[in-house]
């Protein structure tokens, strides 16, 4: 079985790298279209024509755009993300801490959200069209329909201001004890969980229900299996591919889409870092962060594809 899958993985990865290249061109083009440049952003109101010219020269902004792009690309390929133009800090070092924070938050949100969503989905199928199903679906849809800043503020209002159980601001730092760190991320992780829950839950429910219509499920029921066993043994394994897909999409969201939640809870992750540097027109940083986000997204999608294939015997053993 290994060779077709290996070939497939190689294909996907090659495609992913191509996509990453395309994305980096897009990001670069995007930052060029924005008004103003990093020299203006650094000098701010105090910019005079001479100081602008000096700084542009110093930062190498006078070269044509494609020269700057390939210079940057050359650095990245050799593992050098460069230094931030606005603060002169090494980008790789600054990103490391931020990325770790973002992954930490995403990890704990996922640990709660994924099993919860799937279990709730299974329960909803088991009691489909009954009040349990409707209650679960209703609550999950409601939590997704509210914008995340609203959920964030509601959580802050009750848990941080009224009852003062969890801190309303989630500033974490190096060397923070694990317990405190967990307490600090309790609210943002909850907000994220609520945001991604419904999508995964509904997809689980829909995918399994789809399978439940098949003849073999009827057979299983007729041979006397309990409702849960039918779902567990026959329906779920056959419905797993779309579920993995939607789980991966949501995992990607937990990493790349959390800017709003980070701002509300003052969490020092990648999103805030990106926004700060977009405002400063700091292209190398925007490029680096954009590349990481794109890599995460593409990577998780590749995993989803491969997992779907592995889960499906027909795709695993093509004729």
């Amino acid at each position: 079985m290994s060779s077709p899958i290996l070939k497939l993985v190689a294909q996907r990865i090659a495609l992913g790298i191509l996509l990453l290249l395309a994305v980096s061109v897009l990001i670069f083009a995007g930052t060029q279209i924005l008004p103003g440049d990093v020299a203006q952003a650094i000098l701010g109101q105090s910019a005079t024509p001479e100081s602008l010219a000096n700084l542009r020269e110093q930062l190498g902004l006078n070269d044509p755009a494609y020269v700057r792009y390939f210079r940057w690309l050359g650095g990245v390929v050799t593992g050098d993300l460069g230094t931030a133009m606005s603060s002169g800090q090494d980008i790789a070092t600054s990103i490391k801490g931020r990325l770790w924070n973002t992954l930490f938050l995403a990890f704990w949100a996922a640990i709660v959200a994924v099993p919860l969503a799937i279990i709730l989905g299974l329960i909803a199928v088991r009691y489909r069209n009954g009040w349990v199903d409707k209650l679960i679906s209703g609550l999950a849809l409601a939590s997704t329909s509210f914008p995340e800043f609203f959920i964030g503020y509601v959580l802050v209002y009750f848990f941080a201001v009224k009852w003062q159980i969890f801190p309303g601001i989630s500033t974490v730092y190096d060397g923070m004890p694990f317990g405190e760190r967990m307490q600090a991320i309790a609210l943002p992780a909850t907000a994220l969980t609520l945001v991604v829950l419904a999508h995964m839950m509904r997809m689980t429910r829909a995918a399994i229900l789809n399978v439940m219509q098949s003849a073999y499920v009827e057979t299983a029921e007729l041979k006397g299996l309990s409702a849960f066993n039918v779902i567990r043994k026959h329906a779920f394994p056959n419905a797993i591919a779309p579920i993995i897909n939607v789980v991966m999409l949501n995992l990607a969201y937990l990493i790349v889409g959390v800017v709003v939640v980070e701002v509300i809870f003052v969490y020092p992750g990648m999103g805030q870092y990106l926004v700060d540097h977009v405002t400063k027109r700091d292209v190398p940083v925007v490029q680096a962060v954009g590349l990481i986000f794109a890599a995460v997204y593409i990577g998780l999608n590749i995993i989803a594809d491969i997992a779907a294939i592995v889960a499906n015997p027909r795709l695993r053993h093509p004729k």
Partner: protein
Amino acid sequence: MSNELEFLSRRVAAGKLSRRDFLGRAAALGVTAPFANSLLSSAARAAGPVKGGTLKAGLVGGESTNSLDPALFMTQVPFAFGKMWGEMIVELSPEGKLENRIAEEIGSSDDAKVWTLKIRDGVEFHNGKTVTAEDVAATLERHSDEKSKSGALGYMKGIATIKASGKEVVLTLKEPNADLPYLLSDYHLIVQPNGGKDKADAGISAGPYKVTTNEPGVRHGGERFANYWQGDKMGHADRIEIIVINDATARTAALQGGQVNMINRVEPKIVDLIKRVPGVTIRNHAGPGHYVFIMHCNTAPFDNNDLRMALKLAIDREEMLNKVLRGYGSLGNDFPINAAYPLFTEIEQRKYDPDKAKFHYKKSGHDGSILLRTSDVAFPGAVDAAQLFQQSAAKAGITLEVKREPGDGYWSEVWNKQPFCASYWGGRSTQDQMYSTAYLSTADWNDTRFKRPDFDKMVLAARAELDEAKRKAMYHDMAVMVRDEGGLILPMFNQFIDATGAKVDGWVDDPHQELMNGYALAKCWLQA
């Protein structure tokens, strides 16, 4: 004050009675809560600062691109943190007087051209070295160098030579300037070892706190510097921390939840709600900051003084103050100076007058709509303000077309480029600084393109004048000129609105900047 109240308030100050109990008993004695509260704080102040603990501030105005190099300070967080670890040559006191810090004495020649700073003995840097005249001179040199990209460069250019000899630093100016000591109080001019020429962002100076944590855009922390030269006046808490909270709602929630002891920039529209929260005190006070609409005097149609006058008369200042600032500010009068400046004189208040506006508008001969650019970042409520302006101008027969620009890029693409837009000024510490920064023909930031050789002469003459009465009269004439002929429409001066949480004491309003001119964390303390 009844003896019993006085006794009780002293017991609270001594920590023997809780605040809540005190207020209860005060109410029983027939005293209103605000008065009882004020008794309490005066008692606490009389009892003296409490040493120890950690004071935390949640502030807007920090980015992950911030640096510890004082030359590059621009936003509120580096400013406030700089006041914690940095020591100044001279500082402005809350009363508007000069307070000597590292300079023990500042003297000038009769023509205000040569200035001598005598350096104080025994002030120590965080690295254990003693502050010398050479360090001060090097600091000033670095900020005068184009390469440092210093925010103070504009004023520093006026210094011709800087010399250190023994305990003195001698500055020779290109032009006489009676305000030099005020210029030296600029927050960028933190004295660093060898002027920061070795490592500009080392975060070492002689301020009340040593830098322990510096995570730009996230948090900054400091611990008390044991050898601070005036430890009795500042640096009461053992540790201070600034947490960057750019979201207004999160900031308020952090204060209410007790995670921080003070916040800056409370939005006027929620002040009345926050006031009701137990333990929270709103600290609002007047300052020199102002919200403006600026017209380029050299660009059509704004090159016509009648049109400018028509627009100045077509704005309803009272309505704007009440609706945009909810009353937390004061009326503007189309010149950038108010009572927060020394040598200020009152001038007759300009009022909303649609008829007169109509008259001037007709006289200008302009026809058609006028484009006014605005944005959320111009000042809080700038979009609403532009719409109010549009309505009040419509009543005078003037059509304003309001265009909302994106906030990102507003300061580089719209402000100081487009002929008519909304903006704000934080103000400066002296009238000369304000006029030199934005009203001299040669100023980079002359955002109204007010280019008048006669006005320039008046600025230079007033700058060199050491007689206060004469100087005051000159500033009055300059103000009238800007008010009646300039391109500035100044509807309102805003107030600084900070808030403190329970147990924070020692607050003194300072008209120069928010958070007690940045010193709140160092000058306040937590009641025991």
